[in-house]
C-alpha cells in the first residue's frame, strides 16, 4: 500500500494514464491522469528550484485543476500544503500562512499581490506568474513566503497538510495531519465504500475543509474521476442538480445543509440521477425532516453519515436504512468506529462510562492528527495518554452508546458550534467584536434557527450605552472573519448579565425575558 498521498497519483497515472482524472465544468477543463501527474511534477520542480525543502509548508488558495496539480506538486516536493479560504479576509489567510511560516503560497493571480503585502512585501515583489499551469483554469501565481523563514518545531517530512479551524481564543489553530494519518482514513474508505475506477466523485467542499480529503485522495487512489464544483456552482442548487445529473456523478459528499438546499430549491424532479450510487454527508446533524425529503427524492443511492472532527479524520460512520421508519423522530446515530480507530465514552475524572451513559467521545488510532501546529500546550491538552502510550483524542462531543452499539450524538462540552458544517468557536466571534472600538462587551451564543439548524446570536454592550446597526456589525465581522462565521442576529443591551464571579452569564442571556 502507498506510504504517501502523492504516490496515489503516480500509481493511478501509471495504471490509467489516459483516463480523465479531474473535470472542472465551470472552467471547461478536463485533465487525464498523465496530464495531472505531469503538471504536479512541474509544480514540484518549480518549488524545489525556489528552495522549498521537505518538511516546509506551502499555502494554496482557490479551487481549480491547477490547484489540484499544485497540491500534488507540493506533496511530491516533500512539503505539506496549507489550504486557505480564498474568500476570507486577507488578514486571516495571511495570518494563517504566517503562523505556519510557509515557504511559498500558490494562489489566484488576482489575490497574489494582496497576499505578498500581507507577508510584509512591497506591491508586486515576490510574486511569480505560474504560466506553466495556464491551461488548467484561472491564472495562478506563486508568492514567496514571509521572511525570515523560521523552522518551528514540529516540521518533518511526513507532514501532509495543515487545516486551520476556528480557535476559541480568537486565533485559528492548525490541525497537522501526516501522510500516514491521511492514508489510514483513505484506506478505510476503500475497504468500507468499495469505490471503483468507474466512479465519478464530486468535489463540493473547498480544499480548506476536511471533507476535501475524501474527495481528492479516494478518487485519485482508485483512478476514478473527480468533478470539481467551484464556489459559484456550489451555491446554486439548480446548477448543482444539473451538474450531478449531467456529469453522471456517482459518489456525492457534502454537508447536510447543501443536500437540504438541493432538495428544497434544486428542482430534482427535472433530472436523471441514475448514476448516483452513494451519498455521504458529514459536518453537522442532518435534521430528520430534511433527510426524509432527500430519501423521497433520491430513493436508490446508499446514504451514510461520516463523523469525525478535523483532528481525527472520519472516525465513526453510520449507514442509513433503505427506508426511514414512518414513526421515527429521533435523529440517526453517528454510528460506530471505523476499522483502524478505537473509541470510548468517558465521564467525570476521565473514567470510561457504562454503555447507555452519557460521556465524551474519545478516539485513538492511525487516522488521528499529530497535533496542533506550534501549540504544544493545546496539543497536550487535547490528548489523554494511556500508560501503554495510546493517545486518545478528546473530541469534546457528548455521546451515548445505544443498545446496538452505535453512538448517538448529544451535543458539545465546550463553546464550539457547527453551522452548515463549519466549525465555529464562539470565542473567535467575540474576539472579533471586541476589536470594534465601540463594543465594550460581547457574548456569542448558538440558537436554534427554527429549521433544525444553528443560528448565531450575539449580545453586545456598547461603550456609550447606545446601539450599532446590525448592518454595520455584520460588515465589521465580515472584515475580520470568514463569511460563514458572521453572526445572524445582534442584540444591543445597556450591559450584559454577570454571574457571581463577574463573568458573562450565558445562561441568563438565553433565558426568555
Amino acid at each position: 500500500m502507498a506510504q504517501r498521498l502523492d504516490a496515489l497519483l503516480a500509481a493511478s497515472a501509471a495504471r490509467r494514464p489516459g483516463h480523465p482524472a479531474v473535470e472542472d465544468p465551470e472552467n471547461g477543463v478536463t485533465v487525464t491522469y498523465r496530464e495531472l501527474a505531469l503538471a504536479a511534477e512541474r509544480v514540484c520542480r518549480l518549488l524545489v528550484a525556489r528552495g522549498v525543502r521537505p518538511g516546509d509548508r506551502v499555502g494554496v488558495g482557490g479551487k481549480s485543476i491547477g490547484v489540484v496539480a499544485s497540491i500534488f506538486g507540493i506533496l511530491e516536493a516533500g512539503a505539506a500544503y496549507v489550504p486557505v479560504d480564498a474568500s476570507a479576509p486577507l488578514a486571516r489567510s495571511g495570518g494563517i500562512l504566517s503562523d505556519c511560516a510557509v515557504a511559498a503560497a500558490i494562489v489566484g493571480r488576482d489575490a497574489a499581490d494582496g497576499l505578498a503585502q500581507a507577508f510584509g512585501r512591497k506591491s508586486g515583489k515576490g510574486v511569480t506568474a505560474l504560466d506553466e499551469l495556464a491551461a488548467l483554469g484561472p491564472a495562478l501565481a506563486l508568492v514567496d513566503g514571509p521572511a525570515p523563514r523560521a523552522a518551528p518545531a514540529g516540521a518533518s517530512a511526513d507532514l501532509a497538510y495543515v487545516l486551520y479551524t476556528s480557535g476559541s481564543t480568537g486565533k485559528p489553530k492548525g490541525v497537522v495531519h501526516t501522510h500516514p494519518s491521511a492514508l489510514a482514513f483513505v484506506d478505510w474508505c476503500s475497504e468500507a465504500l468499495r469505490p471503483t475506477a468507474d466512479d465519478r466523485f464530486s468535489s463540493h467542499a473547498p480544499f480548506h475543509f476536511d471533507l476535501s480529503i475524501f474527495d481528492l485522495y479516494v478518487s485519485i487512489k482508485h483512478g476514478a474521476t473527480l468533478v470539481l464544483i467551484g464556489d459559484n456552482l456550489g451555491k446554486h442548487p439548480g446548477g448543482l442538480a444539473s451538474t450531478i445529473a449531467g456529469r453522471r456523478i456517482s459518489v456525492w459528499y457534502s454537508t447536510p445543509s447543501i443536500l437540504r438546499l438541493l432538495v428544497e430549491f434544486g428542482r430534482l424532479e427535472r433530472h436523471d440521477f441514475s448514476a448516483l450510487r452513494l451519498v455521504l454527508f458529514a459536518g453537522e446533524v442532518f435534521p430528520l425532516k430534511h433527510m426524509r425529503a432527500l430519501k423521497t427524492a433520491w430513493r436508490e443511492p446508499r446514504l451514510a453519515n461520516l463523523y469525525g472532527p478535523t483532528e481525527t479524520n472520519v472516525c465513526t460512520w453510520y449507514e442509513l436504512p433503505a427506508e426511514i421508519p414512518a414513526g421515527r423522530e429521533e435523529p440517526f446515530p453517528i454510528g460506530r468506529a471505523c476499522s483502524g480507530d478505537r473509541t470510548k465514552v468517558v465521564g467525570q475524572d476521565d473514567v470510561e462510562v457504562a454503555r447507555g451513559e452519557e460521556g465524551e467521545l474519545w478516539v485513538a488510532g492511525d487516522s488521528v492528527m499529530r497535533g496542533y501546529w506550534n501549540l504544544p500546550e493545546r496539543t497536550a491538552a487535547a490528548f489523554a495518554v494511556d500508560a501503554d502510550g495510546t493517545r486518545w483524542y478528546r473530541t469534546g462531543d457528548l455521546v451515548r452508546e445505544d443498545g446496538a452499539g452505535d453512538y448517538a450524538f448529544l451535543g458539545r462540552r465546550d463553546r464550539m458550534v457547527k453551522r452548515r458544517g463549519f466549525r465555529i468557536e464562539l470565542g473567535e466571534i467575540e474576539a472579533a467584536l471586541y476589536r470594534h472600538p465601540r463594543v465594550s462587551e460581547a457574548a456569542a451564543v448558538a440558537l436554534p434557527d427554527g429549521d433544525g439548524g444553528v443560528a448565531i446570536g450575539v449580545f453586545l454592550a456598547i461603550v456609550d450605552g447606545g446601539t450599532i446597526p446590525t448592518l454595520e456589525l455584520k460588515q465589521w465581522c465580515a472584515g475580520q472573519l470568514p463569511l460563514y462565521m458572521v453572526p445572524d442576529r445582534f442584540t444591543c443591551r445597556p450591559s450584559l448579565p454577570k454571574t457571581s464571579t463577574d463573568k458573562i452569564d450565558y445562561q441568563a442571556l438565553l433565558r426568555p425575558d
Partner: protein
Amino acid sequence: MNIQNIRQTVRDHILKEFLRDESPGVLTDTTPLISAGVLDSISTIKLASFLEEHFKIEFKAHEVSPSHLDTVAAIADTLARKLSQPKK
C-alpha cells in the same frame, strides 16, 4: 416595471427577510450585501429563489454571486436585463 420599482421590491424583501429590526434607511442601493456578510450563502440562495419566482426569471449559476447580486442596484440591473430579454 421600471428600475425604481424593481429596486423597491428587492429592498423591501431584503429588509423583511434578512434585516428585521433594522431601520430601512440603513439599506441603500449601494450597501454591499454578500461581500459584507449581510447575506450568507443560504440567504443568497433564498433571495435568488424568491427573485426567480417573483419576477418569473431564472438565474444561471454564475449569476448567483457577488458580481451580480451584491447590492440592491446590482440585483435590479441584473433583473432588468433578464426581464428585457425575450422569453424562450
